[in-house]
């Protein structure tokens, strides 16, 4: 006889965890980003660029020490859930709990409320809800929550194009570089460039966003994709945009590419740009 073991996670635990992750993601910049700043500081040729990188290192230190947001744009709360199929949620609706956690984290953590209720009428919701929630059901009995607050400045410079398959790799590379060049100083370089290639229109955009969650500078496990990431990073840094767009060689800290199978007629490419405040924190319940 098969024994069913169901793990129970309460909505109370989810609320507390999400609230904590909202604050931690905004106060504590990841060690991977700090290491990337330090490495760039050694390589950067522009004195203004070096000054800016030093200010960013100092800023991360102050934010962590004072437990204040590293950037005043504390972002849209983008939440990735990996829900084990043997997990039961007790005490209420899962998405209500996520939003309650965001409300609590952004209010209690003195984070800026940057969400308007209607894209055209534009009245601030006052508590940074609702979150954008992406859920994947996976094997197992755990619930993994990743919180990635996304700022408006860099999100606004992101783009998606449905290329013709004949445009191939060269077309993909050109679109990525053109998008970064057009973004220029606006997304607060040095930036992290998340690229999705393949899937459908919406899957491609999601791949680009998921690419931003990878540890900074860790290459793709696929050798051909890792080689493209390396080439694109070099070409982007050769543009001269530099820290804050004021000139220099540190335009991007990393290029991360995620791919997915696609239709015989399609070659979608999405570029999701993140500012240097490449924030994300996760927890497993």
């Amino acid at each position, binding site marked *: 006889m098969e024994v069913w073991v169901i793990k129970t996670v309460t909505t109370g635990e989810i609320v507390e965890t999400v609230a904590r992750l909202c604050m931690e993601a905004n106060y504590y910049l990841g060690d991977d980003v700090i290491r990337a700043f330090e490495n760039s500081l050694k390589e950067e040729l522009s004195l203004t660029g070096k000054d800016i990188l030093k200010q960013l290192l100092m800023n991360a230190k102050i934010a962590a020490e004072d437990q204040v947001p590293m950037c005043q744009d504390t972002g849209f709360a983008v939440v990735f859930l990996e829900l084990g199929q043997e997990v039961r949620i007790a005490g209420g609706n899962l998405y209500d709990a996520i939003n309650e956690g965001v409300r609590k984290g952004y209010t209690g953590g003195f984070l800026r409320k940057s969400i308007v209720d209607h894209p055209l009428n534009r009245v601030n919701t006052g508590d940074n809800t609702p979150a954008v929630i992406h859920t994947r059901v996976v094997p197992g009995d755990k619930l993994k929550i990743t919180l990635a607050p996304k700022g408006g*400045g860099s999100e606004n410079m992101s783009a998606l194009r449905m290329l013709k398959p004949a445009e191939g790799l060269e077309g993909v590379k050109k679109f990525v570089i053109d998008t970064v060049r057009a973004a220029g100083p606006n997304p607060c370089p040095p930036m992290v460039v998340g690229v999705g290639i393949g899937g459908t229109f919406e899957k491609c955009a999601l791949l680009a966003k998921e690419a931003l969650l990878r540890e900074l500078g860790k290459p793709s496990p696929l050798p051909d994709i890792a080689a493209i990431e390396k080439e694109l990073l070099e070409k982007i840094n050769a543009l001269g945009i530099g820290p804050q767009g004021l*000139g220099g060689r540190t335009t991007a800290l990393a290029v991360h590419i995620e791919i997915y199978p696609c239709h015989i007629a399609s070659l979608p490419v999405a570029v999701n740009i993140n500012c240097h405040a490449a924030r994300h924190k996760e927890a497993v319940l």
Partner: protein
Amino acid sequence: MPQIKLSTPLSDEVVENLRIGQKVLLNGLLYTGRDAAHKKMIELLDQGKPLPIDVKGQVIYYVGPSPAKPGQIIGSAGPTTSGRMDSYAPRLIALGLKGMIGKGKRSPEVIKAMKQHKAVYFAAVGGAAALISRSIKKCRVIAYPELGPEAIHELYVENFPVIVANDTLGGDLYEEGMKIYAVK
């Protein structure tokens, strides 16, 4: 490169001597404003009504700070993208606004207005918001409290760090800087 200390309000003479790439430490009063506050100010001008602040000689900082924690003067307060204020800025420059602080490029219209009416654009480091807020010593809301973080705040700053990005000669550090460091 030496840093230049300036106090607000700024005179034509001071502004005309600034050049792109110079590092400046601003002292004195600054006024905050972003999209919503600019929209309201331009509506007032269209109706022939006075602005809530006299912009003559003043500097506007494009920022929407995060809420202050208990004991803090202001929350994190880094610059927002200036391009969203481009359609409003020339009107204020024509009224005597001498400086703007933000991040990112300005439109040809704003650059032309800066040249014509003697004003400059300063870049602050986007995302260095916790660091920047340490140079803000006083903060009070003086107009549009209903806009929350987008209200017009009067800030008193000491050694607020900026870089001259556009000067009165039409110079543009975003263009020039990129040219220097691009790999040919």
